[in-house]
């Protein structure tokens, strides 16, 4: 069973509880600018879209990190703050924009699924963000749209899980 965040924008009301919960879990402060999840407000369409890392297989961030500060923990790409030097190269390599530089810490930040208990999903009052077994949800569809930008053909067939 592979667990992931499954996001249904149709249920999002832009209350931004997820941003506050994420920021609080990771930094101890309620500061949406330090949240790993962002709610986009497409007001002309009346549509809100919570957006964060889909833990993609390509792992652009992990492979580009010059000092091995991002590892694959059972599919989750985790930044190790004690190793990150703050060079920011992952923030331009990730074509989804879901790794960001945090000036307050001098490190990069990204979604780590809170180690298996994501604060955003727990805080979401409308089940727009749920943490669930991806085999029974529309996660693949979600990941596909994120990976729409990946023009590099997925090479060599399916890869076995990362060695880490």
């Amino acid at each position: 069973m592979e667990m992931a965040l499954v996001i249904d924008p149709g249920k999002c009301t832009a209350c931004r509880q997820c941003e506050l919960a994420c920021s609080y879990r990771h930094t101890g402060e309620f500061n949406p600018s330090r949240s790993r999840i962002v709610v986009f407000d497409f007001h002309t369409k009346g549509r809100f879209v919570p957006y964060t890392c889909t833990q993609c297989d390509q792992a652009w961030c992990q492979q580009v990190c010059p000092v091995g500060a991002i590892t694959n923990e059972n599919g989750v790409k985790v930044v190790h703050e004690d190793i990150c030097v703050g060079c920011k190269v992952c923030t331009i390599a990730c074509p989804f924009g879901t790794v960001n530089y945090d000036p307050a810490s001098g490190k990069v930040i990204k979604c780590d699924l809170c180690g298996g208990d994501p604060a955003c999903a727990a805080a979401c009052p409308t089940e727009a963000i749920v943490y669930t077994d991806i085999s029974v949800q529309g996660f693949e569809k979600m990941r596909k749209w994120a990976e729409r930008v990946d023009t590099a053909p997925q090479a060599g067939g399916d890869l076995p899980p990362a060695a880490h």
Partner: protein
Amino acid sequence: MHHLIIGAGPAGVRSAEMLRRLDPACEITLIDGEGEAPYSRMAIPYLLEGKIDEKGTWIHRPLEFYSEHRIALVRGRAEALDAAAKKVRLQDGTELAYDRLLVCTGARPIKPPVPGLEGERVRHCWTLEDARAIMEHAQPGSDVVLMGAGFIGCIILESLIRRGVKLTVVEVEDRMVPRMLDEVAGTMLKQWTERAGARVLTSTAVEEVEDTGSKLRVKLSSGETLPADLLVVATGVTSNIEFMDGTGVEKRAGIIVNARMETSLPDVWAAGDCAEGCDFSTGDLNTLAIQPVAVEQAITAAKNMAGGNAEYHCALPMNILDTAGLITTSFGRHEGVGGERAVLHNADEWRYIRLEFDEDTLVGAQTAGHVNMVGCIRGLIQSRIPLRGWKERLLKHPERVAEAYVDLAREA
């Protein structure tokens, strides 16, 4: 199957990891030319400013990573390749046979033809050995001259300032990072750097360096002479491909590779700063010499060496620089291709965003002081996604570029 990889930088190490993951049984040898633990040059600025120790520059720690993954590290420098016999000779005479070879020999700094660029106090900032020498000579109060305000110059600038030196930057072009930033952003960066405490001389060349014993005397094209305890030369790099002379391999500035990272020689691949492959932005051959392309090429090469069928099509020029706190980026055709342009310039807030369009797609960008979700710019350029209504919005509000990406990717 014996995979031989020449070069233990990020490209070499990432390819070795991928080979091991794809082929648990193969033999992997990684040749390191510097006698160091495999490390990343990109981490050197953080070593100089004391944020990390030398181990912090390593690609993997502890070093048992390599033995655990059965990656044999061999010290040496490649001297010659016999592609017919499938052998590489090292400078110490050792011959290594291979079944498949990956060349990741990287690049080295160029020493410009200026008289007097020699001696202990004239250094590049390229290797760990260089970093040790710079740390020795760049003491608080030292006079330091940085020759070249390109990528490397700008990225080590902060660490030099933080070391408390009196820093003068000398750049021959009319602005800082001319290959990455336009006049507006390059000038903004110069003003920022001056406020951070360095003197910046653009449109100025170093003409001669004289060692007077106590100090170096750095003579400039302006007629001025600067005293220096240390001169750091950061004026560009060139690929390390001379050992392939005589093999008949197709090359220009780098070894030419196709989308599979194959060279023109059988069973020889190349990746990273020594390779010259297709540039996503132009469709022409180019050596980009940047970390993302180096590792992405290396992983593609490894997949093919392991018998897969991988192609790499997104070698996009892109850079991110943090110069004493002002973060600048550039992506793709940042100087434009003659299409429409969106510009946001707020000098008071040190913010600049310039987007370049080709009809209905984004083809390039440069930014200063704009970092939030900046990777989306790569996403938009690389996907060649039609912008539709978003182009009009971005022409007025280029800062909404991430929003455009999220909306468009979702609907695609």
